[in-house]
């Protein structure tokens, strides 16, 4: 232990993020404090993810039904993300990654809560049973795969499936949906996307380091990517159909998803 008597670092002005050395940077961006500052900016004054004063756009019965179907699928995805992120806390290799994943656990719990609440606002009496009835088989298969990876205590594979594959999928789908959604749903989605961006960044950085340090693991993660591809494609197809988007959008969303994978050099 150092015997140096130091004043707490926060006695002085906290340095700019990019002035920090690598380990101090990681400590900062994985911290509760960092998460706290980030979400305070976009969750303050909201209730269940949106401005409580915002008036609802009128929705036709058909649009409302379609939105309910989409939100049920989102709930299934967020429920999977919540359980996987919680499982990843115990697999994480150090305190900083455990703390970051704890912030992600709370984020995923919030997403599930705001989507369930939105279903209630749309008149669904029992949102949880509606989710059980309507969630698409491809999303449920994705959920099963994530649970299997966590149960197998395979940190890198579970991290890839959750923070790269699932988060990238949600990022592109929610971002696309927010552009055409009613105002209340759009506000909810825009805030969820901000969280997803943070989770993807963590996944890409952690996994990027892992793949650099353990090059032998690359083929294992690559094989998992190939295995997940058909689930991703099927989920995208379901979402495009539920949202009533043109078929070309599925290709575009698929392209955006694959960009994330490409950054890790796992395509091909």
């Amino acid at each position, binding site marked *: 232990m*150092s015997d*140096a008597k130091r004043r707490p670092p926060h*006695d002085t002005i906290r340095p700019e993020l990019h002035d920090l050395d690598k380990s101090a940077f990681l400590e900062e961006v994985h911290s509760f404090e960092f998460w706290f500052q980030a979400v305070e900016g976009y969750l303050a004054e909201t209730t269940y993810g949106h401005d409580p004063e915002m008036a609802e756009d009128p929705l036709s019965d058909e649009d409302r039904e379609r939105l309910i179907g989409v939100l049920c699928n989102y709930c299934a995805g967020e429920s999977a993300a919540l359980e996987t992120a*919680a*499982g990843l*806390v115990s697999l994480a290799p150090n305190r900083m990654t455990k703390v970051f994943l*704890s912030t992600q656990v709370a984020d995923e*719990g*919030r997403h599930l809560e705001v989507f369930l609440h939105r279903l209630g606002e749309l008149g669904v009496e029992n949102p949880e049973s509606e989710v059980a009835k309507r969630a698409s088989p491809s999303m449920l298969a994705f959920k099963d795969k994530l649970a299997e990876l966590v149960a197998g205590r395979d940190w890198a594979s579970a991290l890839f499936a959750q923070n790269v594959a699932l988060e990238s999928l949600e990022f592109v789908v929610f971002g696309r949906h927010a552009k055409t959604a009613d105002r209340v749903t759009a506000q909810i989605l825009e805030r969820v996307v901000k969280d997803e961006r943070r989770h993807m960044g963590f996944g890409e950085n952690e996994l990027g380091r892992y793949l650099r340090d353990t090059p032998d693991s690359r083929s294992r993660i690559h094989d998992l990517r190939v295995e997940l591809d058909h689930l991703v494609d099927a989920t995208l197809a379901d979402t495009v159909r539920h949202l009533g988007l043109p078929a070309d959008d599925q290709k575009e969303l698929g392209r955006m998803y694959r960009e994330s994978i490409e950054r890790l050099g796992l395509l091909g």
Partner: protein
Amino acid sequence: MADFLNAYSIQNWLESCPQAYLEDTVFGHSSDEHEPDLIMENEVLRHDAIRTTVALVVGERCALAASSGLINAAPDEGSKRFLATQTLDEARHVEVFTQRLYDLGVAKEDLESVIAQHANPNLVKFAELLLEKVDKRDFLAGVVGQNIVLEGMAFSVFEMMHVMNAAMNPKFAHTLQGTIADERRHVGFGENRIGSLVRDNPARKPEIEKMQKEMSYWMLATFSQAFRDTSAVDELERIGQERTHSNYQGADLGKLSTNEMEALLGDTVLKEFKVRLGRIGLDYQSPDRP
């Protein structure tokens, strides 16, 4: 159950925690507060503060592993979402107490070795008992162990520490104040959620009561070693620094010996256990004395 769980929603958590008592804090206290010179300039007191804080980090790491592990064992979505907020609370506690170790002069590269050196082995046994239940995805035993026994212990320990530090070390007292508010919420969830599960699974009562008895034993052993190892009281006397005369459970902590403080804390926690376990339909089991 759904109505009661609404009080434990993430929306409620956001309004009551980050947007309320944690607002304008840095690592749980005001940014202009720091460890007092009395501790930083006295090696005995500084090392004692490090040893005490290590125990808090070890306890909170256990709570983090348990609360995140229980999410996948929870039988309903509402409980999962509450446990998501608890996971984040526990991670925050790990972070603020780890930060205190840094503030006390522990170098970042030495953190794990300092924790390994000072970790109370009885507290480690206590944690292992709980995490064994969590690993088996035993929600009922896990929540009793975590939200009633561990959190109940933490609540009383933090309260005693808060009283002792309020005048002498406002920085640490403020950090503790936020964690006490969190623990109160966690204990409340445990009491409210578990009662119906105990009623529905009466055959499981003896096994869970046995766990409470064993965890209580290791808790008392933890207290015993912690008070035996402390050198702060003797050191304050040696340097002629009067102890703070703060009131805890009707006693003046400034006048009690370490043995008396240990007995007071142990009795307080066990009394609380008895009341809380009674509320959820479990019979409190007196632990053996270490």
